[in-house]
C-alpha cells in the first residue's frame, strides 16, 4: 500500500515535470473518447436502438408506386387499405393511420396537437400495451363513435401533469369532444412527435371503389413470423397484379406496384448514410487520437530509457518498474477519461442541438454507457500499452549493452515505429479532410442555389382552421380575406400571402388534364406540384413573373378560374412557349377548367438539392385551403418585428385558431440543408482535430529524430553543409513522412469517396480540386510542423563533431 502511494507520488511528480506532455496526452485521450462517445451515442440512439415495439424487425410499411409516372412510395387509399387487410398472405396484421394537426380549445389559449388518426389495429400491429386505461376498439372506426383519444406519455406529462385521473377526461379538439381512454408507455410516439391518437373512422363512401385514387393513408403491417422481406415483396407483387386486373381504370399502364419497406428503413432512411459516415469518420479520429497517445508515450519512453536502465542496474525489479510506469499511465488515463466523459456529455448535447429537428428519434439519444466504455477502454488501453514500453525495455537481457550503446538502437526502432504512426495519422487526417472538403463544397453549392425567391425579411407561420367550423369554403375564403386584410394593414408589413404549403415545406402532387390533349399512354397520370395561394403570395416572396400576370383579387370564387404556372411546367407541356391562355383541370369533383394566366420563374418548392418540378399556383379564393402557411414581408426587413402584431390580428379574427411553427423563411431555407451543414461541420471538426494531432505527431517525431541526429548534423556542417542544406535535409525527412501519409491517404480517400457520392451536391466524390487542395493543405501544415525542429537542427554547433561520442 505504501509502495502504491509512493508510486502515485512519484508519478505525479514526474508528470508535473512535463506539463506539455501531460496536456497533449490528456487532450488526445479526451478528444478520442469524447468525440467517439458523442457520435456513437447519437448513432446508437437513432440507428441501433430498436424502436420500443414488439419484434420491430417484423414491422413493414406498404406504399403504392406508379413507375410510369415516376411516383414512388405514395400513400394508400381506403379501398386499397381494405385490399391489404384481405389479400396478402404474409401479413399478421395491418393498420392504417394518417397524421394531422388539431387544435385543442377550452383552456386559456388554443393548443395545437400533432394527432394521428389510426385504425384500432395500429397498437396491436406495433405491439404496444397501454400503461393506463385501454386502447380504442374496432367499434370506434365508425363515424360518430370515434370520439375517443389515447395520449402519449409526453402529452400526458406536459398537459395533464401525469394525472392518473385523466381517464374519462374530455378534450375539445377542433370543436369536437373526445374522451381520454388510455395512455401510452414512454417512448412510444409514432410517427415521431405524435401527441395524441384518435380513431380513424372514414365515412362509408370513402370505401367505394371510386375513391381508389384518393390516397392519404399510411399503412404499417406486421409480417407473419418467419416471413422475409423478399417473400413479403413477392406476395405483395401478386396482390398488385390482382388489383391491376380487377381495377384496370385505376392501375392499367401505370406500372403499378406495392413496395414493402422495413420500418427501420423508413424511419432513419435519410440519415442512415450520414450517420454511418460520421461514425466511420469519428472512428478515424479515434485511431488518430490513439496513435497520438502512442506516439507521445513512445517519445517519452525514449527520453527515459536511460533512467530505466540505471534504475534496473541499481536493482529495481521488473515488477517494480512496471508498477511505476503503470501508475503514471493510469493517472494520465484517468485524467483523459474524465475530460473525455465531460466532452462526450457536452458533445452529445451539442450534436443534438445542432441537428435539432432534422434527426429522427432524436429523443431516444442519450449518452451511451457502452460506447463510452468502448472508446474509453480503447484509448486507455493504448495509453497503458505504450506507457509500459520503457518498463518493458528494462527487461531486456543485456542491460549493460543497453547502457553502453546508449539508446541508439532502440531509439532508431522507436523512430521507425513513430514514423509509421505519423504516416497513419497523416493518411487518416487526409481522408477526413477530403470528406470535410467535399461536404463543405456541397454545402456551399447548396447555399448558393438560386431558390427563386427572396427569403430575407419574410416571416412564416402556419395556421390550421378546424374542419368543423370551417367546413364551407365560403367561411374559409372569408377567413383568408379578413385575416390578410388585417395583416396587410399593419404598419410594419409590406405584403402578406397565404399558401397551402410553404416553400420547402413538402410535396403535394395532384394529377390533372390538359385541354385538347389526348392522354399519352406513356405519360400516365401527369402530376403537378399543387399550390393554392392568395394573390400577394408570390409577390411577397419576390418571385419573378416571366409572362402574363400574377393572380389578383378579382380571381375570386365567382370568376373564371385562373392559375399561374412555373417555368418548368410551361417548358414541359408547352415547349413552343404558348402556355398562356391554355386550360387545365385538376382531377376531382371540386375543380373547374382553369386558364393559365401567368408564368413565373421556378422556385424550389421541395428541396434545394433537386431541380424544380412543374408547379402551379391556383387562386386560394377558388380552391380555399384550411391548412395554410402564412408569409409576411416586414417593411423593416426584420421579420421578427411583425410577429406579435400578426399573432394579435389572428386572435382578433378567431381566438381559437393558433399560429404555430413561426419562423423566418430564411431559417426554413437553412434548416432544409441542416443535415448537410451538420455533416460539413462535423467532418470539418473531425478533420481539424486530426490535422492538429497529425501535425503535433510529425513535429514530435521530427524533433526527436533531429535530437538523435544532432551529431550527424554537426558532422555535416563540419564537412561544409550550410544551414540551408541542413534545413532541407530535415524538412525533407518530414515531407517524406507527410508525402507518404498524403499518398496513402489519397488512395484511401479515392476508395472511400465512392461511399459519399449520394451525400454530395454540386461536386463529384472525386473532385480533383478538393483532392489537390486538401493534399496541398496537409502538406503545408506538415511543412510548418517540420519547420520548427528543422530550424533547431540548423542551430547545431558543428564543433560537436570533434567531441567524442
Amino acid at each position, binding site marked *: 500500500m505504501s509502495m502504491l502511494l509512493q508510486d502515485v507520488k512519484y508519478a505525479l511528480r514526474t508528470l508535473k515535470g512535463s506539463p506539455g506532455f501531460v496536456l497533449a496526452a490528456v487532450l488526445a485521450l479526451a478528444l478520442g473518447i469524447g468525440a467517439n462517445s458523442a457520435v456513437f451515442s447519437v448513432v446508437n440512439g437513432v440507428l441501433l436502438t430498436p424502436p420500443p415495439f414488439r419484434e420491430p424487425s417484423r414491422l413493414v410499411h406498404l406504399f403504392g408506386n406508379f413507375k410510369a409516372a415516376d411516383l414512388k412510395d405514395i400513400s394508400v387509399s381506403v379501398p386499397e387499405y381494405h385490399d391489404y387487410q384481405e389479400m396478402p398472405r404474409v401479413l399478421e396484421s395491418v393498420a392504417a393511420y394518417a397524421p394531422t394537426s388539431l387544435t385543442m380549445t377550452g383552456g386559456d389559449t388554443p393548443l395545437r396537437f400533432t394527432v394521428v388518426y389510426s385504425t384500432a389495429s395500429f397498437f396491436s400491429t406495433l405491439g404496444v400495451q397501454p400503461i393506463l386505461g385501454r386502447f380504442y376498439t374496432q367499434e370506434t372506426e365508425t363515424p360518430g363513435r370515434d370520439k375517443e383519444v389515447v395520449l402519449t406519455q409526453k402529452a400526458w406529462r406536459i398537459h395533464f401533469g401525469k394525472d392518473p385521473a385523466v381517464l374519462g377526461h374530455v378534450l375539445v379538439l377542433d370543436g369536437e369532444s373526445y374522451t381520454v381512454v388510455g395512455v401510452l408507455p414512454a417512448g412510444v410516439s409514432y410517427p415521431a412527435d405524435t401527441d395524441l391518437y384518435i380513431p380513424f373512422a372514414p365515412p362509408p363512401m370513402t370505401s367505394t371503389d371510386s375513391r381508389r385514387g384518393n390516397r392519404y393513408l399510411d399503412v404499417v403491417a406486421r409480417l407473419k413470423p418467419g416471413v422475409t422481406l423478399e417473400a413479403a415483396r413477392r406476395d405483395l407483387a401478386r396482390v398488385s397484379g390482382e388489383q391491376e386486373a380487377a381495377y384496370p381504370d385505376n392501375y392499367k399502364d401505370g406500372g403499378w406496384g406495392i413496395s414493402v419497406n422495413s420500418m427501420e428503413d423508413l424511419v432513419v432512411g435519410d440519415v442512415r448514410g450520414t450517420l454511418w459516415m460520421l461514425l466511420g469518420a469519428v472512428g478515424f479520429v479515434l485511431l488518430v487520437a490513439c496513435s497520438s497517445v502512442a506516439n507521445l508515450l513512445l517519445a517519452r519512453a525514449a527520453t527515459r530509457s536511460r533512467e530505466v536502465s540505471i534504475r534496473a542496474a541499481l536493482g529495481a525489479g521488473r515488477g517494480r518498474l512496471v508498477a511505476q510506469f503503470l501508475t503514471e499511465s493510469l493517472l494520465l488515463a484517468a485524467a483523459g477519461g474524465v475530460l473525455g466523459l465531460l466532452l462526450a456529455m457536452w458533445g452529445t448535447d451539442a450534436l443534438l442541438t445542432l441537428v435539432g429537428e432534422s434527426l429522427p428519434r432524436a429523443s431516444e439519444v442519450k449518452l451511451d454507457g457502452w460506447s463510452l466504455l468502448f472508446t474509453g477502454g480503447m484509448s486507455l488501453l493504448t495509453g497503458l500499452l505504450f506507457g509500459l514500453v520503457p518498463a518493458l525495455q528494462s527487461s531486456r537481457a543485456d542491460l549493460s549493452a543497453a547502457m553502453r550503446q546508449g539508446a541508439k538502437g532502440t531509439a532508431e526502432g522507436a523512430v521507425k515505429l513513430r514514423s509509421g504512426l505519423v504516416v497513419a495519422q497523416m493518411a487518416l487526417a487526409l481522408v477526413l479532410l477530403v470528406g470535410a472538403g467535399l461536404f463543405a463544397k456541397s454545402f456551399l453549392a447548396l447555399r448558393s442555389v438560386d431558390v427563386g425567391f427572396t427569403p430575407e425579411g419574410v416571416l412564416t407561420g402556419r395556421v390550421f382552421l378546424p374542419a368543423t367550423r370551417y367546413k364551407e369554403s365560403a367561411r374559409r375564403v372569408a377567413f383568408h380575406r379578413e385575416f390578410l386584410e388585417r395583416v396587410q394593414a399593419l404598419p410594419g408589413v409590406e405584403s402578406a400571402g397565404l399558401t397551402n404549403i410553404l416553400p420547402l415545406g413538402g410535396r403535394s402532387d395532384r394529377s390533372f388534364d390538359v385541354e385538347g390533349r389526348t392522354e399519352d399512354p406513356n405519360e400516365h397520370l401527369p402530376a403537378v406540384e399543387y399550390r393554392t395561394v392568395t394573390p400577394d403570395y408570390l409577390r411577397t416572396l419576390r418571385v419573378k413573373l416571366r409572362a402574363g400576370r400574377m393572380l389578383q383579387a378579382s380571381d375570386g370564387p365567382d370568376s373564371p378560374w385562373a392559375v399561374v404556372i412555373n417555368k418548368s411546367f410551361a417548358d414541359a407541356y408547352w415547349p413552343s412557349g404558348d402556355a398562356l391562355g391554355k386550360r387545365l383541370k385538376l382531377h376531382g369533383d371540386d375543380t373547374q377548367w382553369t386558364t393559365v394566366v401567368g408564368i413565373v420563374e421556378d422556385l424550389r418548392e421541395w428541396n434545394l438539392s433537386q431541380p424544380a418540378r412543374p408547379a402551379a399556383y391556383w387562386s386560394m379564393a377558388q380552391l380555399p385551403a384550411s391548412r395554410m402557411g402564412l408569409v409576411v414581408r416586414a417593411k423593416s426587413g426584420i421579420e421578427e418585428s411583425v410577429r406579435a402584431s400578426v399573432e394579435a390580428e389572428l386572435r382578433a379574427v378567431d381566438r381559437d385558431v393558433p399560429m404555430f411553427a413561426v419562423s423566418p423563411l430564411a431559417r426554413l431555407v437553412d434548416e432544409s440543408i441542416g443535415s448537410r451543414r451538420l455533416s460539413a461541420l462535423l467532418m470539418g471538426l473531425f478533420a481539424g482535430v486530426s490535422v492538429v494531432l497529425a501535425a503535433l505527431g510529425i513535429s514530435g517525431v521530427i524533433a526527436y529524430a533531429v535530437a538523435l541526429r544532432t*551529431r*550527424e548534423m554537426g*558532422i*555535416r*556542417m*563540419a*564537412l*561544409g*553543409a*550550410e*544551414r*540551408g*542544406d541542413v534545413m532541407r535535409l530535415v524538412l525533407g525527412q518530414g515531407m517524406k513522412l507527410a508525402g507518404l501519409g498524403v499518398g496513402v491517404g489519397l488512395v484511401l480517400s479515392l476508395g472511400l469517396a465512392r461511399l459519399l457520392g449520394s451525400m454530395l451536391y454540386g461536386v463529384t466524390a472525386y473532385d480533383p480540386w478538393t483532392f489537390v487542395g486538401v493534399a496541398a493543405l496537409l502538406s503545408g501544415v506538415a511543412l510548418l510542423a517540420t519547420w520548427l525542429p528543422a530550424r533547431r537542427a540548423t542551430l547545431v*554547433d*558543428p*564543433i560537436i*563533431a*570533434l567531441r*567524442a*561520442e
Partner: protein
Amino acid sequence: MMTTTNDSVPAQESEGAVLAGGPKVEAGKALIQLEGLTKVFETEEVETHALSNIHLTVRQNEWVAIVGPSGSGKSTLLAVLGLLDTATRGAYLLDGRSVLDLSSSDRALVRNRHIGFIFQSFNLIGDLTVFENVELPLTYRGMPAAERKQRVERALERVGMAHRARHMPGQLSGGQQQRVAVARAVAGDPIILLADEPTGNLDSKNGEAVMQLLGELHKAGATICMVTHDPAHARVATRTVSLFDGRVVQDEQRR
C-alpha cells in the same frame, strides 16, 4: 591564470627549434598564419582561456603534430583552424586570406572547399553508404555527379577501400571506417587536412595503418595538422607543436 606574455622557459626552447629547422621549411608557402590568437570560453562563472596569444605558421606540405596534456587546448586550436569555432581575439589567415570574420555560410564554404577533417570517432553517417559518405562534401559543393563519382572512386582507391563502396559504415571495422573518413577528407582536394586524435578510437595495429596512410598522403604533398596523444605518432610528423594551458610551449621541427 597566467598572462599572455610568452616568456616562460619552454617558449625559449620553441624559438630555438623554429630557427633550427628554418631554411628548409621556409621554402613552403604559408597556408596557416595565426597571430596572437586567443580563445576565451565564458561560462556562467569562470572564464576559460583555452587558447592564449598563439602565434603559429603552417607551411605547405608540413605535417604538424599538436600535443599536450588533456585540457591544454588542442581540440580548441583545431576547431579554430577548421573554422568550426571562432577566436576571441587575434588574426587567422588561411592561404593568405583572413577568415576570422566570415559569415557562417562563408565559413561553411571554406570548410567545404579547403579543409579536410578526420575525427577521432570517424563520424561517418550511419544511414549513408561508404560511397555516399565520401561523396557528401562534394555534394555540398554542387559538383556534377560524374565528377563526384570519379573523385570518390579515386579517394577510396587511395585509402584501399574501393571494394567496400556499397557497404554501410556499421559493416566496417573501426580501422576501415577511419580509412573511409580519410578518403572523405581528401576527396575534395583540401589545402589542409585537420585530424583530431585520428587513432584515438583504434587499436595499435589499426592506428599504425591510419598513420601510414597519412604518411603516404603527406608524401604526395598534403599539409596535415594532427592532434595526438601518442608520442610515437607525433614523432612521425615533421613538426611537433606542444600546448600547455592554452599556449604554445614548444615547437619542434625535424628534418
